[in-house]
């Protein structure tokens, strides 16, 4: 039971935050109830950036300290980040169809986000196929630093270029009840992010110990 306390807290808070977003907020005047996708789409996007920042910092620290811990953490965060970016893309697509009228369009925000997804998928498959753990860590670390370059590009894309995707909302452009629900869900997703990276790290550690044992 003790083992699962963090999981129960994180999942419980996530369920609460989602429930709050779905039932305790007003629907948007223009979009109606479909706007509630925001409470999963936006937190997923924010937290994928956090995950990739963890990959970036861990990769840098591996290059400096040469401790395998940092390599495993980078791999774990990358995997969770990819899942969140995939979720962001899927939910965005589902949101786009009834509001914009299209599932997909090649504007700068959507395109750079798709590239973000494939950069980290590439990073993970790159890792998968180097058998020697030390060599893998050494080669993956510079990659983990390099591909982070795209994260600020994705974030700024809506400000730098004309896009179909709107610019970031702020508390001044949103109803306070919506802001609250969005913040709740941002923290709920952060809880899941930490939990998943932790779990994934434990698996990476076990795997590493097995590799060393062989």
């Amino acid at each position, binding site marked *: 039971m003790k083992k699962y306390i963090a999981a129960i807290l994180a999942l419980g808070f996530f369920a609460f935050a989602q429930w709050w977003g779905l039932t305790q907020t*007003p*629907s*948007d*005047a*223009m*979009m109606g109830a479909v*706007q509630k996708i*925001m409470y999963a789409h936006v937190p997923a996007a924010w937290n994928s950036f956090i995950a990739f920042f963890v990959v970036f910092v861990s990769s840098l620290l591996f290059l400096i300290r040469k401790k395998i811990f940092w390599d495993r953490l980078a791999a774990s965060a990358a995997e969770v980040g990819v899942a969140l970016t995939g979720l962001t893309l899927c939910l965005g697509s589902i949101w786009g169809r*009834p*509001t*914009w*009228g*299209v599932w997909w*369009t*090649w*504007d*700068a925000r959507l*395109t*750079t986000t798709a*590239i973000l997804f*494939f*950069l980290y*998928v*590439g*990073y*993970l*498959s*790159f*890792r*998968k*196929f*180097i*058998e020697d753990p030390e060599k893998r860590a050494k080669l993956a670390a510079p*990659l983990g630093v390099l*591909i982070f370059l*795209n994260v600020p*590009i994705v974030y700024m894309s809506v400000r*730098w*270029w*004309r*896009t*179909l995707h*709107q*610019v*970031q*909302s*702020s508390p001044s*452009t*949103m*109803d306070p*009840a*919506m802001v609250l629900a969005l913040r709740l869900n941002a923290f709920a997703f952060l809880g899941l992010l930490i939990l998943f990276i932790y779990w994934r790290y434990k698996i990476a550690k076990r795997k590493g110990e097995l590799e060393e044992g062989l």
Partner: protein
Amino acid sequence: MQKKLGLIIGIVIIGAALGYLAFGKLEKNIVYFVTPAELLAKGDAAFNKPVRLGGMVKKGSIEWNAQKTVLKFQMKDGMKEIPIISHETPPQMFQEEMGVVVEGKLASSGIFQADRLMVKHSNEYHPPKEGEKPHLIYKELVQ
């Protein structure tokens, strides 16, 4: 052998993604749409070339024929206007004073033939208020 192949696939995916970011069609997509004033400034060179055009739907200009699925409206950007004709049912949010992006060609008659119509939403989210006209908040939508 399989490992090597996978490694190459990983490198290829990252290389392709980075390459696309640096040299790819993104450059074209950075100018995702042109405004009516920009398109008309090209003069004759603007005619019959596929382009994305973005602007606002002019108030009172929408003509919608549901039987024939013909939609006509004026797109404006504050300086110029272009008449748009589309043969598809527009998205639900399509309305006066709304941001729109259309894909198609400007015919030499001066009418823009749209193959695809997309609605551009602002970053504002509010519940409906009594007597409020939500579409008025779309003024600043098109840069």
